[in-house]
């Protein structure tokens, strides 16, 4: 078993999703290599080499990989992919964009969103918005998995002494296909949604983006990340990258506080693995109460400020 993890990073820093993917790799074996492809990535390769469980870091440092465009990265990885029995990415926007393209080049039917690895060829994944769990056995020689980060603990950022090998990128050129134009990243001092220990999420009942500020205040008091239901995002109360749910982010914090969220199955699919769920809603029949450990039937405009003040 030789396992290749494709690291997610910003060129300057390693993203925590990579640490979860490494843990998934450890379920398969100990011969774990991590590919860091990007531009000016030495701080990332250094960080990965110190991660627990990593045997080797493969560095592919070239301008063509700066924005992680799959058109440039997938053909490069496909050339040496046959050295590995498994290739794993985190099931984030990065991994979801890249791995299917690589899988098609390798003629392998990848498995998306793996939540449990049972055997080298067998894994479990949620389907139908998490309303069913399928167990799938792969017959392909190279197995490609994207793994749900909340289903695997992060490996430690220390304790590893992996060697760093620089891959030959002299033959790589930026494709004439997609070009990166720009990014608008949400600036926030709060923890990242998918890595936060506590999340406070707001729903449509907030009524406006101005009212959404009470969610922000509670989150700041708790040191929490802020999330939102699809209804709140669609209504413009919160930015799109706040969305928790089947088609948004999948989260599993220690504490999830759902405020004014009714609990559509698509939202539950994104947060029901949280350790403790708190629901604040004025409708006592809201489905969110069926999954909440602690439910409070109350007007959120009174309860949330009170919660913030009394913490």
């Amino acid at each position, binding site marked *: 078993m030789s396992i290749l993890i494709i690291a997610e990073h910003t060129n300057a820093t390693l993203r925590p999703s990579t640490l979860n993917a490494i843990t998934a790799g450890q379920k398969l074996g100990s011969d774990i290599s991590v590919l860091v492809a990007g531009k000016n990535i030495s701080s990332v390769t250094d960080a990965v080499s110190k991660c627990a469980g990593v045997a080797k870091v493969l560095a592919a440092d070239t301008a063509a990989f700066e924005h992680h465009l799959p058109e440039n990265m997938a053909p490069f990885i496909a050339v040496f992919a046959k050295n590995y029995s498994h290739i794993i990415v985190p099931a984030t*926007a990065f991994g979801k964009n890249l791995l299917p393209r690589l899988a098609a080049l390798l003629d392998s039917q990848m498995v998306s969103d793996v939540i449990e690895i049972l055997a080298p060829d067998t894994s479990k994944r949620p*389907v139908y918005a998490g309303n069913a769990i*399928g167990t799938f*056995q792969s017959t392909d020689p190279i197995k490609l998995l994207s793994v749900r980060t909340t289903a695997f603990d992060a490996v430690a950022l220390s304790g590893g002494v992996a060697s760093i090998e620089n891959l030959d990128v002299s033959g790589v050129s930026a494709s004439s296909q997609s070009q990166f134009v720009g990014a*608008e990243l949400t600036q926030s001092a709060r923890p990242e949604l998918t890595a936060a220990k506590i999340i406070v999420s707001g729903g449509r009942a907030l009524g406006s983006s101005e009212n959404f500020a009470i969610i922000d205040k509670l989150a700041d008091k708790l040191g929490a990340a802020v999330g939102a239901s699809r209804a709140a995002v669609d209504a413009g109360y919160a930015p799109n990258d706040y969305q928790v749910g*089947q088609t948004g982010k999948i989260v599993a914090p220690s504490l999830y506080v759902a405020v004014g969220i009714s609990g559509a199955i698509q939202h539950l699919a994104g947060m*029901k693995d949280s350790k403790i*769920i708190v629901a604040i809603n004025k409708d006592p029949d809201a489905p969110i109460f069926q999954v909440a450990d602690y*439910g409070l039937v109350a007007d959120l405009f009174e309860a949330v400020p009170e919660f913030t003040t009394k913490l």
Partner: protein
Amino acid sequence: MKIFVPVKRAVDYNVKIRIKADQSGVELTNVKMSINPFDEIAIEEAVRLKEKGIATEIVVVTIGAPVAQDVLRTAMAIGADRGILVTTPLATDLGGLEPLAVAKILKKLIEKENPNLVIMGKQSIDDDSNQTGQMLAALMGWPQATFASKVEIAANVATVTREIDGGLETISTPLPTIITTDLRLNTPRYASLPNIMKAKQKPLETIDATTLGVDTTPRLKMLALTDPPKRKGGIKVASIDDLIDKLKNEAKVI
């Protein structure tokens, strides 16, 4: 410009699914089926491009049982010009036709139809794979613009805003290209009754998948399909004071 829109017939968004007792799949008999919501967004985007005069023809395609032609009629009622039904006896949700096989079938059709642009949903809400568009792009050797929340097309270049984890990213890709849709790209219109009637007259071609020379043998064996672990409901608290006390002393999470 010709736009190609692959769509999938899937269990309706509002249906609560039931797993078969033998764990072999989801019960689909007498269950409401619809166009996969992301694919409906793809059709709407194509129709808008035609209304702006950028596109001239919209071809919609689906793969499945003969009954899947109902989603083609719906797509044509929204504004697609003609439909192609590729028939297969394989299940299209789980344990049958897989994303890689779908991408290979679509490649054959694209080679015949020569569209300038493919717009399709980023994932279907049955198997939730989120693979087919990226795989098709790889097989065609075309660029890909996934998870689109905004599309602008000018001078044979698509400028696409993508929903990524930290916010939004914009890329430009020359045509031909493949765009996969995210939820906020647009709000699909309802088909009007006259348009539903007109759609019945639009051309619909049927192709047997076996005639396309694509190996559709599943690569994954579905060993079981089970209910997710049930989360048991908890208690109601009477006040914020009560809640804070429980979180501090019982759950110990704050």
